[in-house]
Structure formats: C-alpha cells, structure tokens
C-alpha cells in the first residue's frame, strides 16, 4: 500500500516486547481516557486515583499483590503450555475445577489442623485443575484434537458444574436463596502476610521462581523449547511429543487449578463466580509476557494494579469494567505494535522496496 511495506529484521529488536507493551499501554490509556471523557469524568483525576489505590500505601500494595497472584499463576499456566506452542484456553475452567476439588477436600476434613488442611486443599485444587486438562491433553496427544476448542468448551462445562453445585447439592441451607456453598472451616483461611495480602503471594512467587529456573536450566525445559520451536527437531533428537504434550497440558491445568484453591482462601467459600475471568486474563498476561515466567510476574503486577484501580473508582460512578477494557486494549495495542519488533517499514524509494519478486535483492540490500 502506497509503496510502503514490511521487511523482516535480521534480528528481533532488542527490548522490543517492552516497547510494544509500552505502546499498548499508551493506546489503552488514551482510549480509556476518551471513554471517561464521554462518560463525563476527568481522565487524569481517575487515573491518578487508580494509581493511588494500587500503589499509594502498603495497604494498596497488599491488595495489588493479592490481585496479581491469580493473574500471575493463571498467566504461568497458559505460558507453560504456550512455550510448547500449545494453547490452554481452559484456565478459566481449570480454576473452577480447582476450586471445586479444593472445597471438596476441605469439606471432608473439617477437624484437621489448619496447615494440613490448607496443604491438602491446595494439592486437591491442583489435581482438580490437572484432571480437567487431562481430557484435552489425551485427545491432543493421541488423536490430534485441537486443544483450543476442547479447553474452551470445558470452561463452559466447568462453569455450569459449579453453578449446579452451589444451586443444588452444595447449597448452603442457611443462605436464604443465595446460590452459595457453606463457608469453609475457619482454619482453611490462608494466614496473613502483611496488611491485606495473605501467603498466597509467597506461594505464587515461589511457583513462578521455581518454574522459571527449572524451565530455563533443566533438560525438561530445554526439551520443551525444542518441541515448541519444531516438532520435527524434537522427534529427531528423540523427544516423545505425545508424553510432552500430556505432561505440559496437565501441568498447565494443575497450575490453574492451584489458583482456584488459593481463591477459596480469599472468598471463604465456593461461589459461581470463583474464576472471575482470571483464566482469560491469564491468556492476556501470558501473551504479553511472550510465555516467559519473568515477564508473567511483571505483567501480572501491572494488571493487578489495574484491577485494584478499577474497583477503587467504582465510588466515582465509573464502572469497574474500565479495567477489563484497558487490559484488552493493552494486549491488542501490544500485539499490533509487536510486528515492528521483527519487521521494519521499508519506504517506497528504498532499494529494498518494490514488489515481491525483488525479494532476493532486498535480502542482499538489508
């Protein structure tokens, strides 16, 4: 178009993804500002209020980190699968499965001491999430069934399962009509770390760090990246793709399931909205972090802050959905901008321009 076209860079632009994230953020905040002006608010005032609510005090930091936990772990879940080129779109459902399994465990052992109950609950949650991912994993590994659609469909099935449970068999008889399960035993609540943050922050940080190092240093992580970059190369060096797909997708589901278990600590009981869109947000986080654990942590904190800010401005009559809008726009902006980390624009008069037949020429010229 107009003689301009894209030419591939010899090397990806260093720091390009950070730049793309920055561009995405600017696009999102600018569009958000337009929405706020249309709705009759001052964007500067609202954004400052959001920033203050997210970072302004130790208490603000504690809420931001609390929100970053499910985002980071859900992001990691998606990233684990993504680093092998698999899409786990089912984190949302696996979070629900984790919460169901976790609260089932907690219902079984109301007399257990706290640390033991919490440990069992979290293990149960991880198993629950892993189990929901097992079906798509087997189907993908052995039959080649597209995991995107199966995990997507299981989200809706998991959502309806929890809806069924809290409206029926697990309904709290004292909740006068509200579809909620009875509260979990008191000792199942996670201990406080500081201010409003509980130890889930430590658990999430530990999981991210351990996995980050393991994926970077171990043979397993190395094989994962090979399998992600080329199936043929993986098979050539003797990596069993089927086993890799199975373990990676189930691990991904287990990490998402853990989110469900940790959220039970925050909500005291299982409710229909236990997943709250964390799973879908995790996809955005993982995509922005280019499937890297370190990036996942950074994006999770940024988006945690956005969500805290979104809730904080509710009092001003601004719907909290502004946080979701900004998140989606950051991703879309960054996705669009990311093109320029691997491509550059070539002008109509540059000697690498011209039509596609001069491709060899352009390679020589660049």
């Amino acid at each position: 178009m107009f003689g301009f076209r894209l030419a591939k860079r010899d090397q990806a632009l260093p720091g390009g993804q950070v730049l793309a994230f920055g561009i995405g953020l600017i696009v999102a905040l600018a569009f958000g500002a337009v929405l706020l002006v249309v709705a009759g608010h001052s964007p500067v005032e609202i954004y400052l209020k959001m920033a203050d609510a997210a970072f302004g005090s130790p208490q603000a930091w504690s809420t931001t980190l609390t929100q970053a936990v499910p985002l980071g772990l859900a992001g990691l879940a998606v990233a684990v699968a993504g680093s092998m080129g698999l899409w786990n779109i089912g984190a949302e459902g696996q979070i629900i499965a984790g919460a169901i399994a976790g609260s089932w465990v907690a219902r079984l052992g109301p007399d257990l001491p706290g640390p033991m109950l919490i440990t069992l609950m979290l293990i149960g949650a991880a198993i629950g999430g892993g189990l929901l991912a097992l079906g798509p994993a087997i189907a993908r590994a052995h039959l080649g069934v597209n995991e995107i659609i199966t995990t997507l469909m299981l989200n809706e099935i998991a959502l309806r399962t929890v809806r069924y449970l809290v409206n029926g068999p697990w309904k709290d008889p004292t909740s006068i009509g509200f579809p909620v399960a009875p509260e979990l035993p008191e000792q199942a609540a996670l201990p406080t770390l500081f201010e409003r943050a509980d130890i889930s922050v430590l658990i999430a940080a530990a999981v991210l760090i351990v996995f980050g190092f393991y994926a970077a240093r171990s043979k397993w992580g190395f094989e994962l990246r090979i399998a992600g970059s080329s199936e043929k190369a993986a098979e050539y060096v003797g990596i069993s793709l089927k086993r890799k797909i199975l373990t990676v997708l189930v691990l991904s589901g287990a990490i998402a399931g853990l989110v469900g278990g940790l959220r039970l600590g925050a909500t005291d009981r299982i409710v229909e909205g236990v997943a709250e869109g964390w799973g879908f947000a995790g996809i955005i986080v993982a995509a922005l972090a280019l499937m890297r654990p370190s990036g996942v942590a950074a994006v999770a904190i940024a988006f945690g802050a956005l969500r805290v800010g979104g809730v904080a401005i509710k009092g001003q009559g601004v719907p909290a959905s502004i946080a979701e809008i900004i998140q989606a726009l950051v991703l879309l902006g960054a996705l669009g901008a990311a093109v320029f980390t691997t491509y550059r624009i070539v002008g109509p008069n540059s000697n690498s321009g011209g039509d596609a037949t001069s491709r060899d020429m352009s390679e020589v010229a660049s």
Partner: protein
Amino acid sequence: MIIAGILGDLQVLLTDTGMWVNLLEFGILLYLAALGEVIAEKAGVLNLGVEGMMAVGALTGYWAGIQTGSPWAAAVIAALAVAIFAMVHGVVSVVMGADQVVSGLALTILGLGLAAFLGTDLVSQPSGAKFSDLSLGALGDIPGVGPTLFSMDGMGWVALALGFITWFVLNRTRVGLNLRAVGESAATADAAGTPVVATRLVAVAIGGAFAGLAGAYLTLKVTPSWNESIVGGLGWIAVALVIFGAWRPGRVLIGALLFGGLIAVGPRFQTRRCNGDEITDCITTEINPIVVSMLPYALTIAVLVLLSIRSRNRPSVAPAAIGQAYRREER
C-alpha cells in the same frame, strides 16, 4: 415405568408450542452468529471474539431500538457497529499478523468490557422495539408448523435467506472460490492474484455483522432487556457450531436447531411443568436445566474427537490455512 414416563414427557414436550417457539428463536440466533464465523474461518481467520461481538451487538441493538423504535433499523445499526468493531481483530491479526487466538480472545474481553461499561444506564430501561411475529395468513393455521415455523418473526426468514446466500456465494461463485482459496492456501491465492488481506478483512467484517445481528436479535426478541451478562456463553456455542457443522452452512443450520432445542428444552424438565390443566399434560421426570445446558459444549467435544478419528484417513474438513497469518515477505 421410567421409560413410559420419559415417553410421556417427550409427548408433552413435542406438543408444547412454547418449546418450539423458543427452539426457533435460539436456533435463529445461534445460526446467524455461527454463519458469520463460518465466513471468517473459510477465509482462514479464526475469530474467538464472537461472545464479545454479540455483547456489543446486543447492547447496540437494544440502544438503537430505544432510539429509533424500529427493530429492523436497530438490527442494521447493530450489524454495522459490530462489523466496525470486528475490524479491531481484522487489523491486529490480519494486517499486523498477530496470533489469531490471542487477538480474538482479546476482542471478546474488550467487547464484554465495553458493553458493560457503556450499557450501565440501559440496565433499568424498558425495551424500545421488539420483532413481532410475522403472520403468513392461512399457513399459520396448519397444525404443528403453523403456530411455530410459519408464525416466526422476519429475522427467522432473514437468517434462512442469509444461510442460503452464504452457501451459494461460497460454493457457486468466483468470489466464494477466491475466499475459500485464501482460507486454504493464502500463498497460492496470492500468486493467483487474489488480494489476501482485503479478502480476509471483508470476511471478518461480514462475520462481525452477522454476530451483530445475532446479538441484536437477543435483545430485540429473545430476552428483550439489557444486562452485562446477557450473552452468557451463546457466542461460544456459535464457535462450537462451526465445527459441529463442519464449516457447511446447511449442517450448521441443523446444529443450530439442535443446540437451540437443547436450550429451549432445558428449563422445561422441572417437575410439574404443565401445558394444560390435565395431569397427563405434565412433565414427570426432573432433569436439572443446568445439566442440560452443558450438552451443547459436551456434544461439540464429542464431534471434534470423532472428526479427528475420522480424518486420520481422509483430509480434514477444516480450512487448511485457518489460524495462520499471511505475510507475503515470508513466502
């Protein structure tokens, strides 16, 4: 005893005109959205933004219905609005070449967020326009199909017409051939002179317009009200339907009616739901409607698995280039 009960229930259900009317309504809605997705996917663009596009369409249609008072004007406005909204996915995934899965999901999150944000004032407002049933004179008196099929509203006939047009254009015209070529092998189509990016953009826009119609039909007919969770997974069913119907407009119609039927039947399996005064007109088995509402998704997984087993020996029915960005520079 149980079998007799279920047979009796079936009879009650099949003679329940309300059930058939609901089946058609949900079928029409799902068909419109799924048809749009067929067009986009046939051109090689997976758009997981249907849920969000339908939310934007539902809100726009509801708002435009209040403004104009005409359901048709409102539906057209919603279709145009969502066609433009879908261009976000078009620009990011087709022009810039970003991953279609991520971009489409972002479109869903953006659409749900935008609809919730912009629709806060409409939650308590009464509906301004509603599609009314179309009377076809004597045809409406035919027992069975008369009060249902031949009494449905105009959008039902529009959906059927769009389905036929889609099939015809895709399979019987040059334009359709080019579109399918772009979805099967973009590089080959490009070499043959078909503008790949433009074709895909148009397909995404049409897909958006259809999702917009579906969303508008939701708030202008099926549930004439607005709240932010009104779409409630119908968009994902539409995505599922495309696979269920093997990317063919005719089969997708059958699937839409089947899934629409499941949605319509769900709430009817509550004990003592009666058509008339007589006890023989009552449903006796109790099935939780939430359990029934899982069936469309479970069926889609089953079909997907079956298709995969079958396609081990023959070529896959899915468009070959689906999900792949096309950049001429990388040919």
